[in-house]
């Protein structure tokens, strides 16, 4: 029994080493291929987000009084990009990482976890940079519930991996699922995830049309964790957790029963 536990722990430690090695390699590759080296890995998505933020602030987006509009928008845009990038990479990453499967110890799931880890690091750094810049500018720091912000961020990563892996495996059997998921991630989410509106400002009867989207819960909970006075009607962490663990659980079940198919077909 104890030997079995040791073997499981060793296997787990090995997988962590593999995922970290793949993430480091991916990071170095991006740095070598980009124009600004290591900094470019963070600054390129940051520049894209800042452009979007500047545009929205210039056209005087309807925002809320409870938070700085920059932070309010940054929460939405960063979480959307984080979710989209992880989920899209999970959808397409197996094909791109095919070369790595030359080494028997590397499995498709490891490459997906590695790219999720990089995206999480990059987007967490962007959020921290924007938050620290705002704190210096106004010389005040407000982060009412850092624990909730961290949990929300991690659960969003789990949700993105779950949705991406589920769509990848189902999409292997039914290709239209891949196309629809890509459409959903690129178009539908932008307008239903609360990037440009606050849920409490929506009339009650309209809310069910957007609150099905777990990413809206993630964005609004992050804003609420920064300022606890920010109201979040019909938004709950329980719903986000349920969606994340259900999608991840189903994704992993689908993945393990179809791993060989993913390796041979692509």
């Amino acid at each position, binding site marked *: 029994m104890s030997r079995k536990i040791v073997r499981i722990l060793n296997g787990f430690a090995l997988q962590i080493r593999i995922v970290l090695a793949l993430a480091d*390699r991916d990071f170095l590759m991006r740095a070598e291929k980009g124009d600004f080296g290591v900094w470019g890995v963070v600054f390129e998505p940051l520049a894209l987000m800042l452009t979007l933020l500047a545009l929205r602030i210039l056209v005087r987006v309807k925002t809320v009084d409870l938070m700085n509009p920059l932070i309010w928008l940054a929460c939405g845009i960063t979480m959307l990009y984080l979710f989209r990038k992880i989920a899209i990479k999970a959808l397409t990453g197996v094909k791109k990482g095919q070369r790595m499967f030359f080494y028997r110890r590397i499995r498709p799931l490891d490459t997906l976890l590695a790219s999720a880890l990089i995206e999480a690091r990059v987007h967490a750094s962007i959020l921290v940079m924007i938050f620290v810049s705002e704190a210096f500018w106004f010389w005040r720091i407000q982060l009412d519930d850092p624990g909730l912000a961290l949990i929300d961020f991690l659960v969003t990563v789990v949700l993105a991996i779950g949705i991406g892996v589920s769509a990848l495996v189902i999409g292997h059997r039914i290709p239209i699922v891949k196309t629809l998921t890509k459409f959903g991630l690129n178009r539908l989410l932008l307008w239903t995830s609360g990037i440009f509106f606050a849920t409490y400002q929506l009339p009650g009867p309209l809310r069910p049309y957007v609150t099905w989207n777990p990413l809206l819960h993630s964005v609004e909970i992050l804003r609420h964790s920064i300022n606890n006075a920010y109201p979040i009607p019909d938004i709950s962490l329980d719903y986000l957790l349920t969606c994340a663990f259900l999608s991840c659980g189903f994704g992993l079940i689908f993945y393990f029963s179809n791993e060989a198919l993913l390796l041979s077909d692509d």
Partner: protein
Amino acid sequence: MARTLIEFKRACREESVPRGRSRCLLKNISLSLREGQKLGVFSDSSKSAQALLECASEVAPLQSGKVDIRANVSWPMPSRGALDGVLTGRQNAKFLQAIYGKPGERREEIARIEELAALETGYFDQPVKTWGTQMRGRFDVALSLIFDFDVYIVSKKFPWSQSSKPQLESLVREAFDRRVAGKTLLLFHQDEEFIGRYCDEAIVIKKGQIAYQGDFSGAQKWFHCNVSKSQNDDDVQDQEFEDSSSTTVEESEDEAQLW
């Protein structure tokens, strides 16, 4: 009784050839590789032997049948694998060390790779794409000989004899001896002396099937009596299917002088 580490069960592998045709490389292969066994491979076609090695290390998929692998198996040594030319030798070495190396011996293993690859000064920290073909080849050999596997799969590209640099040749032979001592070995090489030195058993593959299995000298004799005379015809057939553009010096499948 020794444990079975790799087991082929009615394994079939085909390769696509021009004009939409396919050719059978392995046909209904059933074979077990036990712990500590050292098995040499003789074959009428080097592609069939290479396919056997690739399937044993799970690098290539099968069309039908199954290969059960119950051990830590190497890639067909000394293949380049998935190393990236954009990264430096050190970065590539660090990556593979994290996956196959011992966690507490990172620095020592990377230093050993650098020593065994015998690169020119400063090249280890340059992108691999800037290296010459021979340097890359040496780096591949060094990477193959550093990590500990239960089963070593050795292909015909392995630079066993490097007559021009006897000192470096002995360095590689020493490292190889140390690695395979007490381990399981599956070896295919043009140099029969090399196979005979390490393998006490051998198989002969003829037209994709195992035609003979037994002790090394018996298999060698059988191969020379029944296969090697007709081998030239198969090699010509192999050549017909090969795309002439793919046989660059760098990707040549034969053993090359690396030092």
